[in-house]
């Protein structure tokens, strides 16, 4: 196990990068402590796979260093890095039994049969494959095969880090939560550093203690799930995390107060207009908007019933404001007023939060 440091890392697929857009990964410094559970979250094309390939050694970065503890591995080939990987599509040897699949990485390292047997059985118990050890892998369902992949990732005691690349994408939702919670429990048990790469916020937020949110090759925020939810540092984080995402409304600033639709809107902190043609926006999550007797006048456009809550879609001066309303709360019809929870309302300048 190891602490992983990405030190002023940047990568370009262009031979001699000149413009900003040439960089698939813009310069970033990230430190992952030993034994932590981390997620890399972002949409397709945000650079997360490039970053994963740099950590595993498939790509040598254009600039910067990768450190495992204090050892510089930037130039080390993949097999010297001691990393276990679990991919989106389970990589399983179909003709082998479940047992042999799990034993494979240990046999490769030349461990003795007794050590291998003890380890394989221990892991099989943890990933719930004990009853299937003698079965051929080919006969297993998609989640069964993914459990083999997980088991193979966990079976070696000496890995520096286990990396998961969208491991639950092919799994049915009713099984997803089970594998997800198993993975979480395994992390708590083993304490091995895990990095989980996904575009799915639920998976990232429930798995990781700390999430790195990426957008356009850039790290836009590193934070705990609560920080990402309550204090998005960038409108992209507000939009990408949460379902539906954060409401983003154009605003102006007058005397240290944000103004939208002619109404002053109290925010978490007093704000000063940075001036110079900056694009100013208010950000507030649908969870922190409620109907009130006065406030911002809105037109109710649509109500979607999600079961445990309803999503109310409204318009105010052409801007869209969505609210989440609990199952048993009333919803007005036609026109209404809404108010924002001031402590959870922030102002953004050109996308970045104003402090």
């Amino acid at each position, binding site marked *: 196990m190891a602490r992983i440091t990405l030190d002023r890392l940047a990568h370009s697929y262009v031979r001699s990068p000149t413009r900003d857009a040439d960089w698939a990964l813009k310069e970033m410094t990230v430190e992952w402590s030993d034994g932590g559970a981390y997620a890399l979250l972002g*949409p*397709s*094309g945000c650079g997360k796979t490039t970053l994963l390939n740099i950590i595993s050694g498939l790509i040598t970065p254009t600039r910067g260093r990768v450190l495992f503890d204090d050892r510089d591995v930037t130039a080390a080939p993949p097999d010297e890095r001691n990393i276990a990987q679990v991919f989106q599509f389970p990589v399983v040897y179909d003709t082998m039994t479940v047992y042999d699949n799990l034993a494979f990485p240990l046999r490769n390292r030349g461990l003795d049969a007794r050590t291998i047997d003890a380890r394989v059985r221990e892991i099989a118990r943890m990933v719930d494959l004990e009853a299937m050890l003698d079965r051929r892998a080919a006969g297993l369902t*998609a989640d069964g095969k993914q459990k083999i992949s997980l088991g193979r990732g966990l079976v070696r005691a000496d890995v520096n880090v286990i990396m998961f690349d969208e491991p639950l994408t092919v799994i*049915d*939702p*009713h099984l997803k*939560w089970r594998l*997800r*919670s198993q993975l*979480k*429990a395994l992390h*708590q048990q083993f304490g091995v550093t895990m990095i989980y790469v996904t*575009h*799915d*916020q*639920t998976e990232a*937020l*429930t798995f990781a203690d700390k999430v790195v949110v990426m957008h356009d090759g850039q790290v836009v925020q590193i934070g*705990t*799930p*609560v*920080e*990402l*939810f*309550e204090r998005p540092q960038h409108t992209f984080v507000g*939009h*990408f*995390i*949460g*379902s*539906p*995402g954060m409401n983003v409304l154009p605003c102006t600033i007058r005397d240290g107060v944000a103004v939208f639709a002619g109404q002053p809107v109290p925010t978490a902190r007093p704000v000063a207009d940075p001036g110079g043609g900056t694009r100013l926006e208010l950000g507030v*999550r649908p*969870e922190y908007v409620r109907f009130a007797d006065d406030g911002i006048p809105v037109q109710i456009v649509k109500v*979607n*019933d*999600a*079961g*445990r809550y309803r*999503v109310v879609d409204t318009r105010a001066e052409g801007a869209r404001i969505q609210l989440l309303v609990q*199952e048993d709360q009333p919803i007005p019809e036609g026109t209404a007023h809404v108010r924002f929870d001031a402590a959870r309302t922030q102002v953004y300048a050109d996308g970045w939060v104003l402090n």
Partner: protein
Amino acid sequence: MTLELRRVEKRVGAETHIHPTSVALAGGGFNILLGTTLAGKTTLMLLMAGLEKPTAGEIVLNGRDVTRVPAPKRNVAMVHQQFINYPNMTVFENIASPLRVARLPRDQIRDRVHRTAELLRLTPMLDRKPAELSGGQQQRTALARALVKDADLVLLDEPLANLDFKLREELRDELPRLFEDRGCTVVYATTEPTEALLLGGHTLTLHEGRMTQFGETATVYRRPRDLTTARVFSDPPINTAPVIKRGDRAWLADDVSWPVTGPLLSRADGEYIVGIRPHHVTPTPGAPDAVRIEGRVLVAELSGSESIIHFSLYDRPWVSQSHGVHPFRVGDLAPLYIDTRQCLYFDRDEQLVDES
């Protein structure tokens, strides 16, 4: 426009893939097929499309028996989970392809392709090839092809499953609007209960090749006819446990009971099954008369805005889903509260105890 299945059945060798199914689907609003992988959703769609022949039964489209009419003659459009486009054709040609097959005049084709592209925000991409598009744009192109031909029946088989989470959210929001004024019958297959709820319309729940219920989506969700339907329509899974009804109280254990409400009141005393959705079991009492239980925490998942606590109660796995962050630790004995007004009760045959 309507699509009616009359005792439609599909057997392959000794296996029954679809048990005899009778249902009438209507236009205006989505018809959701909800079920896990292998529940029979795709088979049912292929039968509707005419790409598979039923072993028995009839398929009636807009009052006309089409059971023996082959797919190309049915005016049906289908979109699959994998984005299927012609890789060598431009987006324009891809969208135009069904109209060319139908031998429409050139200017009409151009008009309709442009109108559909506008609707799906593909206008700037019309000259590109599918490989130059993002996943979302590729699936939009496939959707455009289904829309452009004005089909009587549109079948969407998990069309958003291969897309990024946020794109899925965006397209899910757009889709019902795209079909709003078309009058065609739209069938949409999904494995996700939340997706079914957000799309609204009607839902048909499927389990192991059998239709378990069909009705308005919100009704099927709130009054599932049986335990199987409740399970299919709950994510995270619905909590279930045996309870004893004695007089006007239901007993979960010797020291946990609550007043019975609703249709169960007038039923005989004895053993029933209670079904409680995870968001009705919360770390703080959601209602004044909520009943306290104590569960041993197995896993706590915190997402920043909500907490999903997996716990064990009388040797059964339970799940609680609540707003806010409730940092329980594994092994803790967690106090949790059941909102008993929201309980569903099922009899020994797993049928919902409902107004009769």
